[in-house]
């Protein structure tokens, strides 16, 4: 069983802390993405797991083995690099077999493993070629093939699709998902592309400046972000934020109000509130959850700056009366045009509330969303069932 466990991993480059106490528990067979903006430490975390970076503190366990101080070769892992890192002077066959032949794997078995990997990735025809003679997508396959022949307990992939063009990226994404299903091996996938992370992963680790901002299923991240960072990072266009005042009005209810908010909103929370809320809170509403209403029913008012017509939907960019920029998504045929004065309403069930520290106060989810999230979690547990001995 080869789940991955990371405890309090710290890493500095010189004086600059890049990873600041990362804790993760990844189940056996799980597909996990590291997602975050450029420079947040995704690659460093991956390389630390691979043993290519010496870590300053913490522990990494793979299966039952503590691999913190092991050489990369001894960790039972394989890694696919962003720029493929194929040996340019070797044929595809040699690229796949090179590591094996130097580790005393018998010739027959090497041949078998290479042919098997080539069959899975459909590169049998290319085995005699040099990397230079391959397209980007083919090189990518060879790089993945080099990982497969190692038959590792853990696959590490660092932005493997980022050098491909958009169309190929979608194709390879599907193939990667199939490959994961077929091999059933634990995979960690680094990306800055949330679509990749959301579509491929059982669970996603959102990293923010060297710390885990949230670790959850894709839908959890979207519907129940745990903090302002995740709320703002997941979803496109971004969630809108407003500074508001909050006060506890019932055991499970918070009322938000404030200068920028014409009418107060009462939001149902998931669980009983331990402490009463006071002070400067943040209200977050996704662009597609906002309604255009009459002036009397509106929470905020503003003026349209730009309408982008995308066919199925229209993205309306506007400036609120207090000067804030807002984005609203509405139906494709909505007649709104630039310079219109508009009135917006935030349905209470779509309001995210964040305390002054930027942490989310968990809101009540409707039955449909809840069951969807539960289903995704369930399928993740099914994949990860191997580990729950």
């Amino acid at each position, binding site marked *: 069983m080869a789940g991955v466990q990371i405890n309090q991993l710290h890493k500095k480059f010189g004086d600059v802390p890049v990873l600041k106490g990362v804790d993760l528990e990844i189940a056996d067979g799980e597909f996990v993405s590291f997602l975050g903006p450029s420079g947040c430490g995704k690659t460093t975390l991956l390389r630390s797991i691979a043993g290519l970076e010496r870590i300053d503190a913490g522990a990494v366990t793979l299966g039952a083995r503590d691999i913190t101080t092991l050489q990369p070769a001894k960790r039972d892992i394989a890694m696919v690099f962003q720029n493929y890192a194929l*040996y340019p002077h070797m044929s595809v066959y040699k690229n796949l077999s090179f590591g094996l032949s130097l580790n005393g794997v018998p010739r027959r078995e090497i041949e078998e493993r290479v042919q098997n990997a080539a069959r899975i990735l459909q590169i049998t025809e290319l085995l005699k070629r040099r990397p230079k003679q391959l397209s980007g997508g083919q090189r990518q396959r060879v790089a993945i093939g080099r990982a497969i022949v190692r038959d590792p307990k853990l696959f590490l992939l660092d932005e493997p699709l980022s050098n491909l063009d958009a169309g190929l990226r979608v194709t390879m994404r599907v193939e990667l998902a199939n490959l994961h299903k077929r091999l059933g091996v634990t995979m960690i996938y680094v990306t800055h592309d949330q679509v990749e992370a959301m579509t491929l992963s059982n669970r996603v680790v959102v990293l923010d400046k060297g710390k885990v901002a949230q670790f959850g299923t894709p839908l959890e991240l979207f519907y129940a972000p745990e903090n302002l960072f995740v709320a703002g990072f997941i979803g496109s266009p971004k969630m809108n934020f407003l500074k508001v005042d909050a006060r506890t009005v019932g055991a499970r209810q918070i009322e938000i109000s404030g200068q920028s908010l014409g009418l107060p909103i009462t939001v149902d929370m998931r669980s009983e509130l331990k402490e009463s809320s006071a002070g400067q809170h943040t209200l977050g509403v996704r662009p597609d959850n906002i309604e255009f209403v009459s002036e009397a029913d509106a929470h905020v008012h503003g003026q349209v700056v730009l309408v982008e017509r995308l066919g199925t939907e229209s993205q309306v960019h506007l400036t609120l009366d207090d000067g804030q920029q807002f984005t609203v998504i509405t139906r494709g045929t909505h007649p709104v045009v630039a310079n219109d004065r508009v009135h917006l309403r935030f349905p209470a069930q779509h309001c995210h509330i964040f305390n002054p520290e930027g942490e989310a106060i968990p809101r009540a989810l409707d039955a449909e969303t809840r069951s969807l999230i539960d289903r995704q979690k369930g399928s993740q547990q099914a994949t990860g069932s191997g580990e729950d001995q």
Partner: protein
Amino acid sequence: MGTNPDSAAQRSRTLEKLTPYLFISPWILGFLAFTLGPLLFSLVMSFYDWPVVGERTFIGIENYEIMLTQDPLFWDSLWVTIKFGLFFVPFNIILGLLLAVLLNQRVIGSGIFRTIFYLPSVISGVALVTIWAWIYSHEYGILNFLLGLAGIEGPNWLGDPSWSLLAIVVASLWGLGGTMLILLTGLQSIPKELYEAAKISGVPAWARLLFITIPMLSPMLLFTFITSIIAAFQQLTIALLLTGGGPLESTYFFAMYIYDNAFKHFEMGFAAANSWVMFLIILALSLFVMKSSSAWVYYEGEMKNKENADG
């Protein structure tokens, strides 16, 4: 009527083609006057009996005949040069490569070491020779002093024909900073992910050097191979100043043979013929190495037709 504008257009096209050559004309003129000119001139000279002062007479290939058939010094000096090259070329490349690999490690002070190892390549040959004369000196040289401390009685490095050539090889290797620098640049252009991928696959360090570094470095190795051969054949300064060709002509290099014929015996025609023979030998060796290189040199940018066919 139609011909006039046509030829005008043609003329302007010809001019257009000439323009780039006009831009490089200073170089072309310099090349003609100072390189190609003297080169051809020396070829002409080699067919003459051409004393520095006195009558010049055309003697056909007699210079070449004498050299090859009647002058044992020609063969002796050629043999000395070849022996020198057999030591110098491999050591220059292998030591240059080892130094480059060492200096490519990310250790504290590697920048300082790079400078130190390159320093001898910058120092004037005469200064270098003076240093080595002092190192090798039989009676008060530091080498024999140090050997003496270890209880060994050092030989007369420059005075003993069995050691003198080796002493010059070692002194010449002092200038391998240039080779090292070229190879170091090559090493730094190899993507580090190749090594990381190999490390993860469990490829041991010696295999990384043998199967990744050396193939990736092969174009630079080819370059240093050829320049080392040329350097070996042109070896003059160190031997001239350190041993003057002796003892017993054990360090009498081919270049020194040419030098003596030209400036001691003032046989310019004969010396020119010597030079052309040296040129042809270097050319032949270089062509041979180049020819063999397709078997062991890997070029990043190139896609050989052969490979395309079997791919």
